[in-house]
């Protein structure tokens, strides 16, 4: 009997362990850092729940290096607690359904949901949970927090504009803000149609501006 055959069970066992590990890794891969949008309300601040009918999540990306392209997500939710007098205690969170991407072209929207971009089946949401709010001037603040996209959670910051408070026609207390994020999609593993050098010159740019304009109803 050949020497190779003698070693065959050992080789097979090694390979089985290797492949088994691959399968196990898939099944039991560590879960992403929790970026839950469940917020801890400060004692004196009002809590608000996003009114998605009067709110917008807009993104902007460079196309072919020559133009800015805009799209929206139509399905999102979120809440926040904020008091300008006690801004440091403010907390903001939202969750966007990636399958709700809308770029005014059904074929393109289908493509954006696929593995080429958002991989909506594996990663149905983009979520944000704030970790801090700093006052800049007037109604402007710097919002810091963790953004989770494609299963990757990264610390990000946004320019937050506090729009104020009021009452809607039903007499309910409402408030609003606009948060403007700027991220590099490559940081989150989204590299399709990206220039080799990670610049804005590829089919699609690397920098994505995400604008979250919220009107919310006091809970």
């Amino acid at each position: 009997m050949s020497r190779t055959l003698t070693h065959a069970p050992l080789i097979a066992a090694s390979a089985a362990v290797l492949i088994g590990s691959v399968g196990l890794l898939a099944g039991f891969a560590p879960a992403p850092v929790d970026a839950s949008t469940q917020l801890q309300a400060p004692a004196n601040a009002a809590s608000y729940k996003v009114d998605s009918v009067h709110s917008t999540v807009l993104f902007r990306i460079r196309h072919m290096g020559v133009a800015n392209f805009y799209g929206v997500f139509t399905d999102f939710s979120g809440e926040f607690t904020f008091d300008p007098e006690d801004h440091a205690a403010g907390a903001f969170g939202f969750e966007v359904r990636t399958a709700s991407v809308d770029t005014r072209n059904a074929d393109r929207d289908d493509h954006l949901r696929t593995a080429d971009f958002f991989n909506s089946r594996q990663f149905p949401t983009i979520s944000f949970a704030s970790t801090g709010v700093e006052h800049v001037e007037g109604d402007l603040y710097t919002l810091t927090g963790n953004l989770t996209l494609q299963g990757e959670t990264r610390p990000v910051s946004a320019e937050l504009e506090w729009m104020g408070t009021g009452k809607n026609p039903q007499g309910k207390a409402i408030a609003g803000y606009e948060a403007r994020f700027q991220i590099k999609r490559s940081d989150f593993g989204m590299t399709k149609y990206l220039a080799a050098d990670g610049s804005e010159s590829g089919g699609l740019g690397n920098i994505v501006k995400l604008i979250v304009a919220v009107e919310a109803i006091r809970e």
Partner: protein
Amino acid sequence: MTPQQAILAILIPGVVSATALVALSFLPGRDRPAEDGEGASRDRIFVRPWPAIVAVAAFFFADLGLNQWHDLWPKDATQRFLAVGVAAALIGALHSLAGRVTLTVMLRVVLGAGLALGVLVPLPEMYMPRGLLIVLTGASGLWLGATGAVLDGAGSRLPRAAVPLVLAATAIIAAPGIFKSGYAGGAQLAVGLGALAGGAFVAAVLRRRTLPGLSGLHTVWLAVFATILLVTYGYQEVPAWWALPIMAVAPLGVVAGLFGKHRLLRVVLAGLVSAVIVVGATLAVVASASNNAAPEEESYYGY
């Protein structure tokens, strides 16, 4: 695909594959037919693991060109091609070294099942019911074992360039179908895989000497191709899902249809091959048409 990406994802894999396999064929040692159906030489055992490693090295450039530098095991299950390629290369090198048909089939079955789990387990149950997951895992393992055995067998009986040509043609014909399934990245990877096999074809044409260990290259090609098909099926809203199993049997069809012993089988499988080509060409035309539509047309969106 930008020119830079085309160079990285298509040209370099082809060149790496061709030059490395040609270089390996110059290594010293006597050629003698082996008993394992690979046409391998017992005197050049140290050469055998290398075609598998060459294959994954070539594929690395395709993945780099299309998916950038990333973790070997990214959280995104649709980006695990390189991990599959590396695992396949290790297994391909192992079974090429051992040179036993039964061991090769067994390892490939395990590889096929493992890659299916690695790609499909992260899907929520609403998209991948556990029963379907089990079926696809088993099918992937059996497919990789059976198709690999057919390709190895054909490689030992047919002209050396035949199997690499079949692999290159299959990958390139599959690309438009995958593209039409909404997975442009998978289609581009398939073309890169075709370039890898094309390089092996060029090497086989240039060098008359039989290179041992090509079964390892087959393993890498099959594993990555299976992964592309599984990602296409599992993660896309596939309008042309029926094309995927046809693509899966295409290598078998080409080999058995064109080179099989039984006349009826040859006719049937040659017909199947023709169908694959017709389907591929049709989808290519449809995809091309939708991609070239004018902005005012409904089918237009470009990229």
